[in-house]
């Protein structure tokens, strides 16, 4: 066991002008023990960057996802997560066994088979978005017109959220996933979304539809308050993360056209970009040793999945986009009991989005130089603010 290696680094490490993932990750992975840093909020946390260590952090029962434990990184300025007290049903903030009740209720909706059955509906949404792009002329913003609108329409269809309310929930979500939002802005956005979903649930009680919220209401396992929180979580997670993945993937496939239509590209894109690098926050509830580092009970931990997914001991030439590799052991969706519930939906959306986009608009190209693409340095999730394209 090494002694505490106090070497504070700035956080988050993703900074304008830098490549992604942050080049310091390479050095951190080589360092003995873990990396100590101080969040903008003043809290001390441990950064975990090696693939093996990240998997350990995400599976060790002595490490908790529950923000109500003392020492949990509140991370006010790094995209804090609500706690179960703030949003009942926000089950990513629960540990086993409480977490299991929510997860088990939702799993049947997101199985590989269920998601496969959604393919025709997703295909239709993708086709309609492309129809709209083509009808609007020969230029556009691929993020707003496609990468965001597709997953937003898919998740709202699945949940039973009216498409007309897209602007509302996308705008509120953006506040939640922007690092520069204040606590007040974040709380207001969170409350507005909850109020909206509470109202929607009352409507669904009176007039159930063929949608996930209506099915969960009929099932009755989750209370109404819990159902609002669960719906909010699925709505947010369902559109924002996928939007970033689709947008970044289009840029990469434009410069690697030989991989268009190859399903292995999706898994490699997930690994390569690891957009949810800053999503998993944890706290040790007992003393625990990870990567040769003693973590004391009450100390915060941030496993960085982009760092793990670029660990050269697991992925050869990790900074190269190479779909021929086996990328399946990536942790872009996390690891452990909280691993992304919607991951199979994300894969299918990305697959259909790329295949259809490049087939129907074969002359698609960037309308600005690659170096001028506006990267979300202020985002909890890595991605692009916009993606000007022409065809």
């Amino acid at each position, binding site marked *: 066991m090494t002694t505490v290696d106090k070497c504070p680094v700035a956080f988050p490490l993703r900074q304008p002008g830098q490549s992604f993932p942050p080049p310091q990750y390479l050095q951190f992975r080589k360092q003995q023990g873990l990396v100590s840093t101080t969040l903008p909020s003043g809290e001390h946390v441990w950064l975990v960057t090696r693939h093996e260590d990240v998997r350990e952090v995400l*599976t060790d029962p002595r490490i908790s996802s529950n923000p109500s434990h003392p020492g949990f990184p509140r991370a006010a300025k790094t995209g804090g997560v609500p706690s179960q007290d703030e949003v009942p049903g926000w089950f990513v903030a629960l540990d086993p066994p409480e977490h299991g009740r929510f*997860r*088990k209720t939702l*799993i*049947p909706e*997101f*199985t*590989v*088979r269920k998601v496969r059955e959604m393919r025709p509906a997703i295909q239709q949404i993708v086709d309609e978005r492309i129809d709209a792009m083509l009808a609007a002329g020969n230029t556009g913003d691929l993020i707003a017109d496609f990468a965001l609108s597709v997953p937003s329409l898919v998740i709202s269809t699945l949940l039973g959220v009216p498409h007309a309310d897209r602007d509302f929930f996308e705008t509120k979500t953006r506040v939640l996933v922007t690092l520069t939002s204040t606590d007040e802005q974040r709380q207001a956005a969170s409350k507005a979304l909850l109020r909206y979903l509470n109202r929607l649930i009352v409507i669904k009680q009176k007039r159930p539809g063929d949608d996930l919220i209506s099915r969960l209401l009929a099932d009755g396992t989750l209370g109404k308050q819990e159902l609002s929180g669960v719906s909010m979580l699925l709505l947010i997670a369902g559109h924002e993360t996928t939007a970033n993945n689709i947008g970044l993937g289009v840029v990469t496939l434009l410069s690697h056209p030989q991989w268009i239509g190859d399903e292995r590209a999706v898994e490699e894109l997930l690994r390569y970009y690891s957009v949810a690098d800053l999503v998993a926050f944890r706290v040790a509830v007992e003393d625990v040793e990870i990567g040769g580092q003693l973590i004391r009970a009450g100390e915060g931990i941030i496993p960085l999945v982009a760092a793990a997914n670029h660990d050269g001991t697991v992925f050869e030439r990790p900074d190269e986009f190479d779909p021929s590799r*086996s990328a*399946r*052991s990536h942790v872009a*969706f*996390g*690891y*452990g*009991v909280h*691993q*992304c*519930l919607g*991951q*199979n939906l994300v*894969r299918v959306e990305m697959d259909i989005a790329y295949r259809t986009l490049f087939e129907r608009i074969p002359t698609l190209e960037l309308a600005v130089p690659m170096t001028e693409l506006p990267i979300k340095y202020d985002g909890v999730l890595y991605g692009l603010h916009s993606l000007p394209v022409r065809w």
Partner: protein
Amino acid sequence: MRIRVDTDRCVGAGQCVLSAPDVFDQDDLGIVMVLAEPADEPAREAARQAGVICPSQAITVGES
């Protein structure tokens, strides 16, 4: 090869079904089930991969 699954641990991510669709499936509740022992080496390799990437470590693959 001996494959054991712990249905209590399973969190229904479906990774095993993606990796080794001939070996694993999800039941109506989304929980892992073993369809059949791997028939050949590619299927055995796929089952090993499923064991390694299962997020809840619910799959044990024994070589004997």
